[in-house]
């Protein structure tokens, strides 16, 4: 059951993903408050018709195959439904003929029956294969689109939408659609076709009995609709309840240390029992309404069969109906009503699949707010002897959240090539926003950010990323070896270069000490890597990428002093000449910068060399004095 597994990752990982850059106490009316809703609620609107358009565009390339598959199932069902008709023919024609020593009809019937059986079997086989090909192509394309789209969507979207929900779009929602495609659709097609064929056959064989049989559609439809309504309510209830169960469960398991350290076991069990009970109730209710539906629809079907059979028998005794036709009716009627239960099952999977498709369509319909340029421009080439850094310009830049809350009022800032700038300030001063504008994680609301005079919005992604690299506080490691994790900075790097980068940042020793050195899988046993070590790996990655502009967003928070100094040494040697923007709350980091910006509520309030500011009387001087005191 991949559904549950993915749901879990949703909650499991959600926690890891909390935005590290937001630090100030946040009030609900503020835009950047993560909604962190539970389970179902979605905050991106689904444009009307989007699910249908998505379906059309997915099916489009397979039109011919779809038509062929429909044709196959149509013929297959026809062949399958001929059986009772042949039985009727055999009884009414074959028996008298045989008594007259005419074997013709019997041979014809037998050949027909076996032939139809063969056709039905072969077509069934081909249909399943063909629909498998179509379904898998659709699923592959859907997965690919979700993945690529999720990667293209800008960071602000990821922050709002939360990782868990994106993951569940591409996993549990796709799985739901797959279930419908694999089992539901084929079943539905068969059921619809068989009901249609049988209906036609019944009416053709005897219109009175036929129409009487078909009248059963009315009550069964009513029951089905009622069931569908009830099951929809139950379905929603159980979805919400299971989300609760999953959240409580993963929260406990991921936080088992505090749970045990603070003796929460009993209280947790009580809380879990409530969610668990809620889920149980919803389940039981679903089972009960299913029981009710099965009983009532079966009863209706059986009443109808009885009525038709009795009336048919009367007609036969009166001589206005042939015995074989009655026999065929009896056989067909049971086939007609057999799929009622299946329809109920199908309704359930259809319901969840259409909900899933809607969510997927909503995600895909969301436009990336940081789009790729239509006609990318290249960065100006660097002369051989120039320093590797590039100049950065914030040109009349202002930034507001979508709701209009202003974070950075209009400002200008010029960072010459090769300068390292430290940005300090209280939480919420706008430091991270400044960094994110430079990394083009966001686009400014007004003005432009340029790199050597080129607007960031005009740079193709590969070009931009050769120019600007950002290392954040978050130190996520991808599954794979340590070496592979470092190589993300430059996939074509050789092993020597990877090790060199690790050495330059002071990470070589601890990596070499891991059970398999650089080839240690970070997710496997023995790969216990501390927060500080992860940050060093992240730095090695940036070192390997060797960008023109390096942004460090609180990237040293978990490092100890030697670690931080290794980073500073690397900045002074390997990364010398690069433009650097360093956000840090450790003033030791600030001291090595060429220039310090002090920010407050979106404004740059102090700007100068560290020495000037320390010597002055401003905020930075006061902060610095306090910090110096703490060192002695």
């Amino acid at each position, binding site marked *: 059951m991949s559904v549950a*597994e993915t749901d*879990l*990752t949703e*909650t499991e990982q959600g926690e890891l*993903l*909390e935005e590290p850059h937001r630090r100030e106490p946040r009030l*609900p009316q503020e835009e950047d*408050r993560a909604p962190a809703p539970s389970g179902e609620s979605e905050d991106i609107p689904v444009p009307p018709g989007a699910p249908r358009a998505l379906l059309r565009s997915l099916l489009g390339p397979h039109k011919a195959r779809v038509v062929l598959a429909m044709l196959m199932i149509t013929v297959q069902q026809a062949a399958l439904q001929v059986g009772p008709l042949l039985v009727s023919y055999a009884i009414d024609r074959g028996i008298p003929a*045989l008594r007259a020593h005419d074997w013709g009809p*019997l041979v014809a019937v037998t050949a027909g029956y076996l032939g139809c*059986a063969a056709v039905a079997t072969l077509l*069934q*086989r081909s249909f*399943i294969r063909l*629909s*498998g090909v179509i*379904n*898998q192509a659709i699923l592959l394309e859907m*997965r*690919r689109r979700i993945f690529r789209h999720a*990667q293209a969507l800008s*960071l602000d979207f990821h922050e709002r939408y939360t990782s868990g929900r994106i993951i569940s779009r*591409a996993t549990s929602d796709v799985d739901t659609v797959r279930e419908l495609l694999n089992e539901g659709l084929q079943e539905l097609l068969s059921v619809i076709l068989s009901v249609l064929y049988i209906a036609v056959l019944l009416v053709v064989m005897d219109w009175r009995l036929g129409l009487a049989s078909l009248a059963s559609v009315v009550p069964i439809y009513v029951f089905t609709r009622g069931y569908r309504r009830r099951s929809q309510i139950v379905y929603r209830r159980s979805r919400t309840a299971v989300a609760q*169960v999953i959240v409580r*469960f993963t*929260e*406990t*398991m991921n*936080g088992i*240390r*505090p749970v*045990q*350290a*603070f*003796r*929460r076991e009993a209280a947790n*069990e009580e809380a879990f029992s409530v969610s668990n*009970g809620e889920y149980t109730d919803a389940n*039981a209710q679903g089972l*009960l309404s299913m*029981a009710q539906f099965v*009983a009532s*629809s079966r009863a209706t079907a059986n*009443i109808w069969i*009885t009525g038709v059979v009795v009336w048919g*028998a009367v007609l036969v005794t009166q001589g206005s109906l042939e015995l074989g036709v009655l026999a065929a009716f*009896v056989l067909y009627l*049971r086939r007609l009503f057999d799929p009622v239960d299946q329809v109920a099952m199908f309704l359930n999977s259809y319901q969840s699949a259409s909900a899933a498709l809607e969510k997927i369509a909503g995600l895909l319909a969301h436009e990336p707010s940081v789009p790729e340029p239509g006609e990318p421009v290249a960065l100006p080439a660097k002369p051989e002897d120039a320093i590797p850094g590039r100049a950065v310009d914030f040109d009349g830049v202002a930034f507001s959240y979508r709701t209009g809350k202003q974070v950075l009022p209009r400002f200008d800032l010029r960072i010459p090539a090769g300068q390292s700038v430290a940005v300090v300030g209280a939480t919420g001063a706008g430091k991270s926003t400044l960094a994110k504008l430079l990394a083009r994680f966001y686009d400014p609301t007004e003005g432009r950010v340029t790199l050597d005079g080129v607007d960031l919005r005009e740079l193709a992604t590969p070009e931009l*990323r*050769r120019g600007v690299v950002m290392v*954040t506080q978050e130190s*996520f490691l*991808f599954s794979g070896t340590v070496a592979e994790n470092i190589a993300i*900075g430059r996939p074509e790097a050789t092993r020597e270069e990877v090790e060199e980068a690790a050495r330059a940042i002071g990470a070589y020793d601890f990596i070499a000490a891991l059970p398999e050195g650089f080839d240690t899988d970070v997710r496997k*046993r023995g790969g216990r890597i*501390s927060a500080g070590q992860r940050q060093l790996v992240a730095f090695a990655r940036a070192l390997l*990428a060797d960008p023109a502009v390096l942004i460090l967003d609180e990237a040293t928070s978990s490092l100890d*002093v030697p670690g*931080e100094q290794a980073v500073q040494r690397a900045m002074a040697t390997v990364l010398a000449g690069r433009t650097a923007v360093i956000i840090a709350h450790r003033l*030791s980091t600030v001291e090595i910068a060429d220039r310090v910006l002090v920010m407050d509520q979106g404004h740059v309030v102090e700007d100068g060399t560290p020495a000037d500011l320390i010597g002055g009387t401003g905020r930075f001087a006061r902060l610095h004095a306090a910090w110096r005191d703490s060192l002695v």
Partner: protein
Amino acid sequence: MPPAAAPAAQPPARHSATRSLLRLWPYVRPIRWFLTASTVSALLASLSALVIPLVLKNIVDGPVAHHDTAGLWRQGVLLLVLGLLEAGLFGLRRWFVARPLAGVERQMRADLYAKLQRLPVSFHDRWASGQLLSRATSDMYTIRLFLAFPLVFLIVNSMVFLTGIGIMFTLDWQLALITVLPAAPLIILCSYFERRYSAAARLAQDQNGDLATVLEESVLGIRILKSFGRHRTMAARYRAQAELLRETELKKARLLANLWAVIVGLPELALGTSLAVGIVQVAHGSTTAGTLVGFLSTALSLRWPVESLGWLLAYSNEAATATDRFYEVMDARPADSEDGPVPDGAPERASARAGARDGIRLAGVRFRYPDAPADSPDLLSGLDLHVRSGETMALVGLTGSGKTTLTALLPRLYEINGGRITLDGTDIREIPRARLRELVSMAFEDPTLFSASVSENVLMGAPDASEEELERALDVAQAQFVRALPEGSGTQVGEQGLSLSGGQRQRLALARAVVGAPEFLVLDDPLSALDVHTEALVEQALRQVLAETTALVVAHRPSTVQLADRVALLADGRIAAVGTHHELLESNPEYRELMSGERTGEGTEDGSLVR
């Protein structure tokens, strides 16, 4: 699922499916009568469905053949009663077990949850929480479904099948023989394909897990991928994985196609043959038309019991696996049973009285993680440390030296492999866990908040603490932002509430540790995510708390070290030096390097000061 979980998830040994399923008995026992009632209903319903063709035969052969209208009504009423009975019984079958089965699922899940909470942290280290969750959700669901359907229908369908064959043989043994003959190859072929199919299905599940892993990482690491412009590399990886999955799914489809061909084809073949033979018999007068109708009708209603055998067995296998997975956790030894032999009580107690205010004492403590490679050295190898009562001791050391691990030993989140730890003279293994964890309050490096209100999260540390104590703790941690939240300290936080920044969470975790004035306080780098300004304020407030308690504080920074009376330097699994900050700065080059970053000369091994 991250593949990391795989080794732990491997069942130790597969025993037979029946043996596994029998382990469900304790949970099934309370509802055994409901299950029996359900089975009986299903059996009766299926049997009445079997009788219906017989009534049809009677109608054709009796009233229809003899123009007997009165007889027709009798048979009609019988048909109706049987039909209603079938419907009602099928409904009842589900109704009997709906609530009881949901209850079984609930009980099993509650037991699993309770068990997991009591398993030691080392168990949780081995198991990815996803593996545990799938046991609590999808495996439970599989087991419930097994009890609801396969269990009941394995019994019912076999009986129906036998009864139906009996009826057919009574009606016409020759036709019956023709119809029954394909049953054997049908079952054999079904189980052949079923086996191969479930192997492919398992492979598909694994590949699905790998695919999900790539996806998860690409989303969780989105900042890194965007920073380095690596999303194309990732997309190529994802596509390759997705195509692997598609291959397997196509293989599944091909197997399914063959399976269905067998399921549809063989019975039709038999029916066609028996139809031809039946017609000949009717023509020769050795059987009646009604018998033929009844026979074919019966044969049709036996199709499902035969077809279903394959998947009923497959599902039972799956349920057996689910049961095994459930018991893998339930059979694990809880923390209490991992207790080593408690040292002889009498002298301990005596020393407890003697050292009433002895503080925290670690003597010869050895520790290694249970999953550490066998050839790696112990993480802590004979560590001695004494934190005097009322003292605050800072613990410093290089990243990866085992500081965090050491803190987890005090409340026995992990069990030491050797030596002993005493609190005021009492061995921690002698103190009941609950009491021990009441005495020792912790703030973890990674501040975890639970889906509950702020005050519930903070008061986890001391459930009986008063409102004032809560306020004081929030003040100490500089968590005044709580008052600006929509509902103050009643605001829901965590996964299902307001999400807070790392710094805010860290301050709440600190408040949680200090609330209710614990006797022993363990803080793991409690200020790492705070900005300079807040850090200074927290330090100031924390000083007062630390003055009244015995504390061990892991520190990375000089500023945090300043909180402590003395500092212990952890290196190579032992305490290398203990002293005040200034003493160590003076005397210990390693410490000096750690705190100030001033190197004692590049590459010099002798530690001589080059300055």
